């Protein structure tokens, strides 16, 4: 139990997908101009990561390992992820049309969000049980959402600041992201301490 909890904290904060593993950076810079958009993206990605990692675990366990088809891993995982994304897209379109409008192209692009495939591949590397891998995926996704929302909040403030023209726009965004990454490095003290 304790190991599971520690693993989840590690996945969410210490080895944060965005700020420590540098995965999913396109959505990190793309949809963090408003907090509600970032939160919507976070929720959608959390759903996709959790569901697809569950399915991927099953595929890995009962298909790829059982028949020695390890070379098909990326193709099958992408197939599963794409289906989950398609399902999410349909659901959001039905439930919240305005969120659908706001996420725009980034919603189908969750398919190619490296955080999703990255988490799935990490799970395979870790050789975790079904429960542990599901919790790990969920915690990673929660960490992703957390960072998305924090960064969106910072960028909302940044939009009001008088930034020198040289730094305005993406440059100041990257500087803020690097400061945020350094702040998250502080969490690595948890694992060693």
């Amino acid at each position, binding site marked *: 139990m304790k190991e599971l909890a520690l693993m989840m904290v590690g996945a969410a904060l210490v080895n944060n997908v965005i700020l420590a593993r540098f995965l999913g950076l396109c959505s990190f810079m793309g949809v963090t101009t408003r907090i509600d958009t970032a939160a919507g993206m976070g929720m959608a990605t959390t759903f996709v990561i959790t569901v697809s990692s569950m399915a991927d675990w099953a595929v890995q366990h009962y298909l790829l390992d059982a028949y020695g088809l390890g070379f098909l891993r990326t193709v099958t995982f992408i197939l599963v992820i794409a289906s989950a994304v398609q399902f999410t897209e349909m659901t959001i379109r039905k439930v919240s049309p305005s969120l659908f409008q706001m996420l725009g192209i980034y919603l189908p692009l969750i398919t190619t969000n490296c955080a999703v495939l990255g988490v799935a591949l990490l799970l395979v590397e870790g050789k975790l049980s079904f429960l542990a891998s599901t919790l790990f995926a969920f915690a990673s996704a929660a960490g992703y959402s957390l960072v998305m929302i924090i960064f969106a909040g910072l960028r909302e403030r940044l*939009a*009001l*600041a*008088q930034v020198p023209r040289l730094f305005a726009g993406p440059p100041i965004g990257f500087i803020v992201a690097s400061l945020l990454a350094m702040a998250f490095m502080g969490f690595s003290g948890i694992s060693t301490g």
Partner: protein
Amino acid sequence: MGLIDRLFKDPAWGVHPDDHKRPAADQPLRVLPPPARLYMPLQQHVGGAARPVVQVGEKVLKGQLLAAAQGNISAPVHSPVSGQVVAIGEVTAPHPSGLGFTAITLESDFAERWIDADAVADPFSLAPEEITRRTAAAGVVGLGGATFPSAVKFVLGQRLKVATLIVNGGECEPYLSSDDRLMRDRASEVVDGARIVMHAIGATQVLVGIENNKPEAIAAMQLAAAPFAEVNICPVPARYPMGSDKQLIQTLTGREVPADARAAEVGVLVHNVSTCAAVHQAVRLGRPLVERIVTVNGGAVREPGNVFAPLGTLVDELLAFCGLHEAPSRLILGGPMMGSPLAHGKIPLVKGASGILAFDAREATIPPAGPCIRCGSCTRACPMGLLPLEMAARIRHDKFDEAAALMLGDCISCGCCAWVCPSHIPLVQYFSHAKGELSARERTRLRNDASRRLAEARVLRLEREAREKAEAALRRKAERAAAKAAAERQETPGETV
């Protein structure tokens, strides 16, 4: 004692600028001889402009009606001198835009002949409605600067059964001392006017709030109010903007006016001391509002002081009367915190003008604005408890709706935030700009709604016309057929029978 604490503890809001009121306030009141030409604007109040009732060339007496009120919220305009109407045309308005508005130009005959006054010996025997009517007919508006027609406020007070009349003698703006001078010289008129207003609105007590930096005015008013138990003189701490009605109400009664409510809804009504004196003149003496005390002050003025001047006098004439050291670097109508900058001196004195400030080069310097350092001074100074820096940051990026969500609408434009700002950011101008933009958008929205209704009505009309046309055509066809059938019957009567 709670009340004493409340009265004398310095409030947490506001600022305390150098008041620059003396020596101007201590100079005896001077009377401006009527100038040769006067320009009486038709819009000297909030609401609809007055409608002229005199012709060019007509001879008028002092106090004669020049333009009648038009609409529910409006006030009439009277002649400030005896003489002749020489023109009705455009003059520059005392407004930051420098745009023009319509005014009646009068030529004085220097005879100062008044109309026959309809004086009332005992105004307290009159019905409140009659006092309201006389106040409205005399063109009395809020003389503190808001220029809201006073009679409309009386009606509001009667309807909401207001118990307390607060008389605003705060005069918190630096440089201004016209109310101070009025209270020192004509305290009995102010008290009498306040009692008439109290009678008109059916209130039971009068609280006169006077800032404690005017001890002479407090003493004079206490003397004048001594015979009347219902009139209480309440010294209040000198702190800008104590003269704003919401702040004065809170200081005197402890009641806070809600964001989207009027003062009358918390059971008080606020009138300025000058307004009370004008009500006294209007009701007791039957004299309409045609003159007022105006402070002429500022570094460029040689003999600063208060002048009793007819309305419609040009600012230049007032400045010439008081003398100038140098050409003023900046002219302001009203106080330095909230007044309107004037482009030039060819602008007439209006009812709401409590002061004319002619600043020399040193006073007029505005340091260049720097970036916001988020010190938060403005949030501490804001008497309305707003976040000026946050609102300004949003307005800078044209996010007016977000600024409105931070309660921009509650801003009273007092200027405390801009005054304390160490970066000299023109915060009030940001807020004025945003308020203007927001009301322009609201107008556009209402207009769009109206045109949508019109467009829908047109579609309905076209449909109805088409239907009526079709019906009429059918009817004609039927009539023709019937006529034809009848004609056939007549032609061959033998066959049909």
